[in-house]
């Protein structure tokens, strides 16, 4: 788990200018303020916070979908924002993305196979036959059949779509995946499956993960380290279990106290194999 530093974020800030105001005057909303962190190869770091905490903006900066206003975001030694267009595009194959809403994150008019294959086509990886093989292999790995591959997203369940999105995120063999609320739209039972899949794939493919979520319980299950954000700034960082067991900041304590934890149940036992009542 303690590999080389893969992601280095230094003093990241993002300003969304108020309508009409000029960004350089510093007017508007700082969605992210002076955020610094490191993600090591193969490690999972969770960004936690309530809505508006700026966690998704950090994710978008990592993905190069938003350029930082201040600071540097380096993935694998390169600063996406500083690269020229061609190099930037090539470098993007290092980072995969899984979004919350699987119904919109897959092209509604493309088959699953085409969506998963598209990154390979864009980067002209391998031969055509090889691409097909890689896609089928990966789809099978995430638990989708050839029949699923031929369908369009609206014909799949939310969980199946999210599996496809995970396959797409991994198809280029990235070193980092950014998962923005990947399970928030899913049912509890499906969420558990997807989290399990993500975690096993992450170990298998040795890919680091930035896991963005508002759900502390899910975060606890997936992450090595946790970064709690509030109003764009980092409130607290630490090893997952330690931070959750003994949060240092009042804010984290408050968050933890507010989570209604699911009750425990004794397992049911069928009468035929059970203790006599």
């Amino acid at each position: 788990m303690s590999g080389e530093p893969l992601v280095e974020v230094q003093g990241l800030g993002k300003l969304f200018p108020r309508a009409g105001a000029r960004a350089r005057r510093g007017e508007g909303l700082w969605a992210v303020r002076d955020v610094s962190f490191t993600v090591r190869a193969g490690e999972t770091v969770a960004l936690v916070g309530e809505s508006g905490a700026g966690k998704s903006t950090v994710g978008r900066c990592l993905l190069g979908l938003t350029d930082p206003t201040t600071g540097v975001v380096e993935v694998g030694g390169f600063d996406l924002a500083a690269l020229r267009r061609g190099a930037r595009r090539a470098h993007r194959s290092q980072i995969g993305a899984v979004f919350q809403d699987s119904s919109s994150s897959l092209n509604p008019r493309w088959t699953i196979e085409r969506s998963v294959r598209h990154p390979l086509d864009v980067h002209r990886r391998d031969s055509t036959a090889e691409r097909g093989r890689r896609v089928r292999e990966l789809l099978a790995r995430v638990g989708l059949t050839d029949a699923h591959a031929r369908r369009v997203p609206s014909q799949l369940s939310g969980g199946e779509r999210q599996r496809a999105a995970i396959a797409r995120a991994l198809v280029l063999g990235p070193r980092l995946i950014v998962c923005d609320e990947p399970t928030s739209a899913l049912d509890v039972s499906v969420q558990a499956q997807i989290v399990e899949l993500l975690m096993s794939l992450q170990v298998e493919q040795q890919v680091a993960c930035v896991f963005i979520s508002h759900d502390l319980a899910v975060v606890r299950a997936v992450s090595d380290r946790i970064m709690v954000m509030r109003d764009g700034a980092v409130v607290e960082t630490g090893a997952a279990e330690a931070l959750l067991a003994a949060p240092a900041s009042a804010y984290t304590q408050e968050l933890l106290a507010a989570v209604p934890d699911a009750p425990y149940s004794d397992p049911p036992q069928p009468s035929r194999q059970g203790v006599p009542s």
Partner: protein
Amino acid sequence: MSGEALVRVAGLTVTARGRRRGDDGATIVRDVELELDRGKTLGVVGESGSGKSTVALSILGLLGPGLHAEGSVAFDGRELLHRSEPELRPIRGAEIGAVFQNPFRSLNPSLRVGVQIRETVMLDGHERRAAEQTAIELLGQVGLPDPERAAASYPHTLSGGMQQRVAIALSIARDPRLLIADEPTTALDVRVQAQILELLARLVRERDMALILISHDLGVVASVADRIAVMYSGRVVESGPAADVFRSAAHPYSHALLESAPRLRGPHGLAASLRGSATPPSVPMDGCRFAPRCTFAVPRCSTNEPPLEVVDDRGHRAACWELPWTPTAHGDAAELRKSRS
């Protein structure tokens, strides 16, 4: 308890009319039975597509066109199903209030909050001045720090949590005896969620109001409900006192659901004890609808559908052929989990 129930739903079946002729309607909810006493809280738990919201809409008489309900929904001894809109109107709002997931959608964006509540209060024949006063009192009761200012503001200027508080104030404005809250905290942040749940619990206590709380989140339901109904694929598969259902879930689905929930405390990790996804209620199927995903399924499960049967004398019921389940100690539980995985 049986004679006194405020709400009694029995044999409720909702079907969607087929789009083409000759097409049998698709079942959305089947044979649902629920019971709720005055001043108590019933939690309805289920995953998406389990039909929990359809049950709520049936009670409110708000099923859309194309949906057809059969069975019985009795409220305070009066049958609500198949009532005409004018017959329902004096009941809905006045005696049964409703709060939904998205508060902004239940508020009129172009009217000040106070005006909306005032108009609602005035439906009961109160005078304008008095209704205005009541509106401000209601906003105070739902925990808005500055009720006067809130009354003068438009919904979009309030935060999501504030909006939900206003929506709750609106729903209790006519002092209903039953409040139906469908995923009222799902769109909110955890800290706000905790506050809203607390508010709902307080209102139930103070106003002797019954509450039906519908949620996919076991933790949310567990924190407020007296009784629980677990729904799966359009059926109630287990119901009973909250403590009993959560402590010793009798239906394998309820238990697997509890096991799948990520937790903040206790053993680390997530148990993906449910494979695949639920069969939609519209898909016809023999036997228990949970059978394909059930670890305990026996041959009979895939041929005959189990009825909701009594588990114990506290009103705990479950629909499973392999009843009765007997509770075991936690140690056994861990072993069982191990042996299954």
